């Protein structure tokens, strides 16, 4: 078991290195740099060039890459050109927000997907199943950014049940109960918006797994043993059907990242996604690099988690 996890961890290193090279090259390929549009156009171009030289912007890409990676290893992600503060400081407050938003979204996603998928799979081809499947099709067809705007408009603006922006009410102090509650309240609407849309693939997946599993021979064995229907479903069918869902978990994290990028923008939620869009627009490359690197790392860690979870729940793929 531990051997498997260690081996799986070793594989992730080349993935991360490749990822960092790719991100760096992509950022370099983007037109303009931090000085574009930032400086007074009346300044002599020679002075700007001098400034570029001084900041190391004229070095070949591999030198810049090595410098950057060296910094990353020391926990230094560089300096934000825009905010004039270290990127790590900039990210630090945002990453916590995005982390909790993601956790809340995942909880909602599975809270919706598991019961709906179970009902839909167990009573397949009934009206109940059709309505659930209908919802999943609508979910697939609805773009997240439109849906989020509608949610914001109804629950934030009209009904005013939820705040329409930010991650916490401004006057509260960290550490108090009100502070925590306010943060949760700010999380709910964006998290629910992502979950309601992104859960549909998991619902369909679970449904088809259950429909598939319930025709397997070992289910007949369970019935022949005298197990009641609820026991057959809970003990035998559900567990076997959840396997692929566990494998899906890593992918879920990847889609979550795309989700948060849209959502944070719409709900003006100060997280990584919002920071990402802002820095791309402002060509703040050190920030873009850092954010994309973290997103990529999250996706890789997600895949790693999937494999580990799968190896725990499925005895067939445990590597001896």
């Amino acid at each position, binding site marked *: 078991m531990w051997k498997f996890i260690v081996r799986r961890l070793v594989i992730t290193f080349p993935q991360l290195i490749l990822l960092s090279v790719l991100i760096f090259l992509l950022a370099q390929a983007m037109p303009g740099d931090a000085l574009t549009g930032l400086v007074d156009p009346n300044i002599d171009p020679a002075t700007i060039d001098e400034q570029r030289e001084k900041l190391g912007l004229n070095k070949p890409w591999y030198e810049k890459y090595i410098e950057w990676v060296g910094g990353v290893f020391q926990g230094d992600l560089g300096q934000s050109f825009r905010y004039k503060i270290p990127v790590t400081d900039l990210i630090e407050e945002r990453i916590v927000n995005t982390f909790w938003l993601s956790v809340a979204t995942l909880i909602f996603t599975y809270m919706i997907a598991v019961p709906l998928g179970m009902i839909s799979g167990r009573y397949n081809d009934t009206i109940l199943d059709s309505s659930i499947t209908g919802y999943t099709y609508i979910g697939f067809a609805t773009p997240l950014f439109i849906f989020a705007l509608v949610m914001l408009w109804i629950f934030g603006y009209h009904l005013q049940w939820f705040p329409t922006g930010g991650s916490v009410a401004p006057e509260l102090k960290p550490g108090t109960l009100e502070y925590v509650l306010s943060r949760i309240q700010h999380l709910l609407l964006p998290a629910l918006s992502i979950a309601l849309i992104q859960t549909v693939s998991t619902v369909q997946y679970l449904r088809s797994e259950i429909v598939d599993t319930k025709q*397997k*021979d*070992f289910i*007949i*064995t*369970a*019935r*022949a*043993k*005298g*197990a*009641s*229907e609820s*026991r057959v479903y809970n*003990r*035998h069918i559900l*567990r*076997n059907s959840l*396997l692929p869902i566990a494998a899906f978990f890593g992918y879920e994290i990847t889609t979550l990242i795309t989700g948060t990028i849209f959502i944070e923008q719409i709900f003006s939620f100060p997280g990584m996604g919002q920071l990402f869009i802002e820095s791309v627009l402002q060509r703040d490359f050190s920030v873009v690099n850092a954010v994309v690197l973290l997103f990529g790392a999250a996706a890789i860690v997600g895949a790693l988690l999937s494999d580990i979870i799968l190896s725990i*729940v*499925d*005895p*067939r793929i445990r590597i001896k």
Partner: protein
Amino acid sequence: MSNKLLEIKNLKTSFYINDGYYAAVDDVTLTVNKNEILGIVGESGSGKSALAFSVMGLHTRAKMEGNIFFNGKDIVNVSKSELNKMRGNEMAMIFQDPLTALNPLMEIGAQISETFILHRPTMTRRERKDRVIELLKMVGIPRPEYVFSQFPHELSGGMRQRVMIAIAIANQPKLLIADEPTTALDVTIQAQILDLIRELKATIESGVILITHDLGVVAEMADRVAVVYAGQIVEIANVYTLFKKPLHPYTRSLLHSVPADGQDKLHVIHGIVPSLKHLPREGCRFAHRIPWMDASDHEENPILHEVEPGHYVRCTCYKNFSLQEDESKEA
């Protein structure tokens, strides 16, 4: 109390296909006595398994008519919970394919223990484990303590079928249904599994229904044999009579299709078993597979005739029947 363990009367099990119900088991009447092995033989698709599933109540979407008396009690229309009390307890079943019949995510020990959890709720964890290991020993599994915590994929097909048998006999059922228990296994393992079933039957003195399409297995194992064709019993007799003096054209064709010494060409029965939807529902169902017979040889509504005590044959066509090679299959 009589010797009858299971009495099936005019059982009709129908499935819904597209536009209506079609009977896969049609008007089956038979009995299984205590401490007896009843063999049921027939081609694939003749309704053998459908019959076994009917007895166990394992059909989820079928219409069942008629009666199945188990120990004198009709179990066709009992409630699900009552049925669950009997399944795995008083009657149990061994399935065809041991490779798929075990839950891939559960340890062997847990899968056998489940029958105790369901039917012997007073047993402690410790008692269950002891009993499971005893069972594993009984069905001939080496190192039972080790196998207890293994998963199905770690065992061979023969071992998995032994586990299935252990599950079936865990609560010493009065009726054991073995649905082609050796079909998925290779020949040497087949013999071991059959020996095991016979031995266990003798120890727990249960009635056994052995479903197979292998006439050799029937000859070796069964006390009485029912031959099934197209959902109906066409002949039923004790095993000696059936093999010495088979009457029904189908039985005779089947027996003639088994390779024997000094035979250079195998007998092939004309045609195939019609699908459930296209079964002839009137007249002799075997008629179109013996096309050289005259229509007047068949009965209009074939019934089982008792030709000798305990030997029943359906339809009158057996009287003038002679085997003929199927010419259409030549060339």
